[in-house]
């Protein structure tokens, strides 16, 4: 955008959304530093693979960014069906082999279809609403069909069982529906219904360990050595960091293994212990830059499909960040959701980079078709 005016820098480079990418690179590099410390001061096994994955998925994101609009619209439904079949596939495989199965072995990598479903549901709903005649936005078609589109993958993922991912899919889909302009009262009614159903779900729908995790949120000391232990240790790590932290590679909570999962779900606590509040504010600032950029891209697009797509992708990233950070600070139950761009883990890196790639894609559509051009 603004960068494109610079004449010295070559066009292909100047065209990139550097106001997103530079903070993102900083965050990933910072994440690698934290993972270096979490491994006890070593690039292996976490930090180096973190950087390698990021590089690989960055290439993937730039490929996604160059996909033309028409091809995306053309591929949306087939992709949805394929991923849904893959979800069904892991469910069947799980039944056959016994035990729960979440991934498909593709030979060269393990693929979690549920991760793919997060961006795919957003694209699918964006496509559906953009092709829905505007007059039907308050009709049953606007509710029922998207409801089924969301419900099928959510149901399959819940069967795995993976509460965190199914919530993420539902959240991404729900945000697209909200932004598509469905009557607000439906959401209010839905919210009331959910609140009423929550106790029933809690007592009959959740596994024992999930119930404990929810209860722990309200009374962390109740089970100080069980489910509450993770939260308590995470809060100790964050709280003991203070303003400037204990210093790089000096976190006792992570190094002495008091902090559970210091490299995945609780990577923020690992960071906060060593970098303190300053480090935390830096991470929050980078996330807000990324999310603000995402919403700006969505608003700048006058193409309904593209704006819904961009907003939905942005919301999916936000869901990861919010749930993870609320959890490590003791304000949400322990749900296995990693922190984007910092946690060590291929699947979440892939999902988030798909989201980033999709946002970059919409950004490039916006530039090729400025707001004065096509209208929704």
């Amino acid at each position, binding site marked *: 955008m603004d960068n494109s005016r610079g004449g010295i820098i070559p066009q292909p480079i100047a065209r990139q959304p550097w106001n997103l990418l530079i903070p993102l690179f900083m965050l990933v590099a910072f994440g690698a530093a934290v993972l270096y410390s979490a491994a006890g001061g070593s690039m292996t096994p976490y930090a180096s693979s973190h950087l390698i994955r990021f590089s690989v998925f960055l290439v993937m994101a730039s490929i996604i960014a160059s996909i033309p609009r028409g091809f995306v619209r053309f591929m949306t439904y087939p992709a949805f069906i394929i991923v849904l079949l893959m979800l069904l596939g892991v469910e069947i495989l799980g039944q056959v082999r016994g035990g729960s199965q979440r991934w498909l072995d593709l030979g060269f990598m393990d693929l979690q279809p549920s991760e793919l479903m997060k961006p795919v549901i957003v694209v699918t709903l964006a496509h559906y609403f953009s092709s829905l005649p*505007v*007059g039907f*936005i*308050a009709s049953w078609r606007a509710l029922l069909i998207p409801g089924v589109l969301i419900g099928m993958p959510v149901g399959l993922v819940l069967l795995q069982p993976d509460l965190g991912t199914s919530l993420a899919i539902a959240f991404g889909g729900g*945000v697209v529906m*909200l*932004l*598509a*302009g469905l*009557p607000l009262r439906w959401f209010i009614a839905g919210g009331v219904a959910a609140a009423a159903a929550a106790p029933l779900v809690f007592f009959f729908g959740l596994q024992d360990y999930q119930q404990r995790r929810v209860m722990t949120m309200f009374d962390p000391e109740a089970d100080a050595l069980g489910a509450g232990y993770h939260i308590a*240790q995470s*809060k*100790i*790590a*964050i*709280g*003991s*960091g*203070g*303003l400037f932290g204990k210093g790089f590679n000096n976190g*006792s*909570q992570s190094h*002495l*293994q*008091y902090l559970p999962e210091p490299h995945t779900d609780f990577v923020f606590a690992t960071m*906060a*212990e060593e970098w*303190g*509040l300053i480090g*935390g*504010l830096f991470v*929050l600032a980078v*996330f*807000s830059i990324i*999310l*603000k950029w995402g*919403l700006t891209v*969505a*608003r700048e697009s*006058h193409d*309904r499909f593209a*704006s*819904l797509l961009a*907003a939905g992708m942005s*919301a999916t990233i*936000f869901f990861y960040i*919010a749930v993870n*950070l*609320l959890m490590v*600070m003791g*304000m949400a139950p322990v749900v296995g959701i990693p922190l984007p761009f910092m946690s060590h883990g291929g699947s979440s890196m892939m999902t988030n980079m798909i989201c980033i790639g999709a946002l970059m894609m919409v950004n490039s559509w916006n530039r090729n078709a400025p707001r004065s051009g096509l*209208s*929704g």
Partner: protein
Amino acid sequence: MKRFFKLNHGAKKRGPVVNASTLKHTFDRRTVVIGGLQYGVGILLAVRMGYLAIAENEKYRLESESNRVNLTLIPPRRGWIMDRDGAPLASNRADFRVDVIPERLSDPDVVLDQLGDLLNLEPDRIVDLKTVVSTSRGFAPIEVASGLDYEEFAALSVRLPDMQGVVPQRGFSRFYPTASSVGHLIGYVGPASAEEYELDRNPILITPGHKIGKDALEKQFEQELRGVPGARRVEVTAGGRIVRDLETRDDIQGDPVRLTIDGPLQDYAARRIGLESGSVVVMDCQTGELLCMASMPSFDPNSFSDGIGSVEYAMLREDRRVPLRNKVLKGLYPPGSTVKPMHCMAFMKAGVQPSDTILCGGGRRIGNRFFNCHSNHGSVDMAKAIYQSCDSYFYHFAQQIGFDKVAAMAKDLGMGQEFDLPVTSQFYGTVPDPDWKFNKFGREWQSFDTVNASIGQGYYLASPLQLAVMSARLATGRRINPRLILDGAATDQPDYNFNSEEIAYIRGAMSDVVNGPGTARRARLPFPDIEMAGKTGTAQVVSLSVSDGRSGPWKYRDHGLFTFFAPTENPRYAGVVVIEHGGGSGSAYPIARDVMTFMFDPQKGLDALKSLESQWGGTAQQRLEARYAEYAAERGATVTPPPRRSEDIFDRVEAEARVAAQQTEEIADEFLVPRADTNSNVTPPSPTGVN
């Protein structure tokens, strides 16, 4: 936009007017709301983090430190308990110890069985441990075994990686070189109970490996002996693995306590009691220092420090010779004839002349009733009454002066008194008199009460310690108070101001008991120049109709007593030997003779003991161990565990001691036909005889 009222009404049913522009508008509005919500969450997170990291920083910093740093107290080495010459009666031995942390044991039963195999623990110990581990929670370590030698420790160490929750330690354990000889005197140590921790919230009490005094002197001098714990600060992982040492402070050993006890004499006396159940007390007549307070059979305090094992406890409890009771302080016995010299002092004080004689015709008529003597002594004066132990003489003069005066003298010489000693408890015993009887039973004093009491029977009860004190006071004519701590403190020993001729007369008569025509001629010391004086006593526990006191069931046999002092001319040592159900004083005075022989010539004493011990089957400690092995093999699986709190054990032992002391009250309400205690030519019955 322009609609009729009707159409407008219809549009309301379908909702507001929707077109691409309003949808874009809605989208923008809602994006702003969502963006705002995201910022809201961001600010909430920032505030929350600020709260955790700034406002609660101190709290979490402390918690993080307490996670990271593990402060281990190093149990201080306990102060020694030494005998008068500085030789240890209780010392410390460097050894290895193994603890388990119940919370970290994956499968407690399996791990404890493994440990049992590796360390050769006895089956009942493993059963005890499983009970303890299954009922305890948390991270407080439980001691599995201490006093391990290096081989056992090394065997365990190589298996440690597979045994999570098992923690080997280096430490010190209490060591009692003379073992059971000092069991009752010194007591033993053990881990603090929950109640003890409630009373004294000192963290050292719950440190594994730390033992506190549980009984007797170990308990009385706990604060002096304890010392100051060392500390070791280490960095630990969540799994309990030690990363590095941060700081170590050495412990400060507890202060030693030096006793007046003569260690070798204590050990000798304890061993010399042999198969009998009894006690030996020896005092220094000049200072009141207790040289020996042996009470046997006893327990091995070394084996109690890991907690009292089920089998061991059952064995000790079932033993009718009550190895858990300190008989010196808590054994109460009718003193029998041993009080006769003291009673004579009372008679003389009341005006009776030593030369006054009575006629013993195998008994004596008191009031309108004839009371038997154990023999027909003919004409009896005071000296003969003592050395021949004629009962008629005492019936007569006690009745003549009134028992009140006799009782006053008894109390003055220590009977029924408590002494200022650092012991956990001592029994007072009873000096009966008319007031006492009326207060206790609501019955009037009868002439048979005087008769019974005049020869140390009836309601009369004394502890061996009291008898020893009485003996020392008679020997010196001064108010000797027993002392147990060698602190050089001057003691007030006021003179009784006895008439020197009278007291010399009594001592002469007591010398005749041993060295003259008396009842204990076999007690004569094997030295040409040292003579011992004494007085025999045979205390009946049942009436003559039940048992003759010498044979038959052990528990009906007479107690054998012998009070003594030596040398006769210039008394230096005084004491008593009391043998429970020994069948008469013949069981007691040979022991007194050998103990005093050892006192003046240890080698001679030991020679006498060696030949006896070869008949008995080893020293007291060897016999205790053999008996334990036999008992464990026979009864190992069927015993009930001991009370969890050692206080319960003491309470039980003490209650039983009181009940046992009351045994003679049952026969005190009737005249007890006395028995001879002239067993000079009668071999005492074997204490191992059938019961």
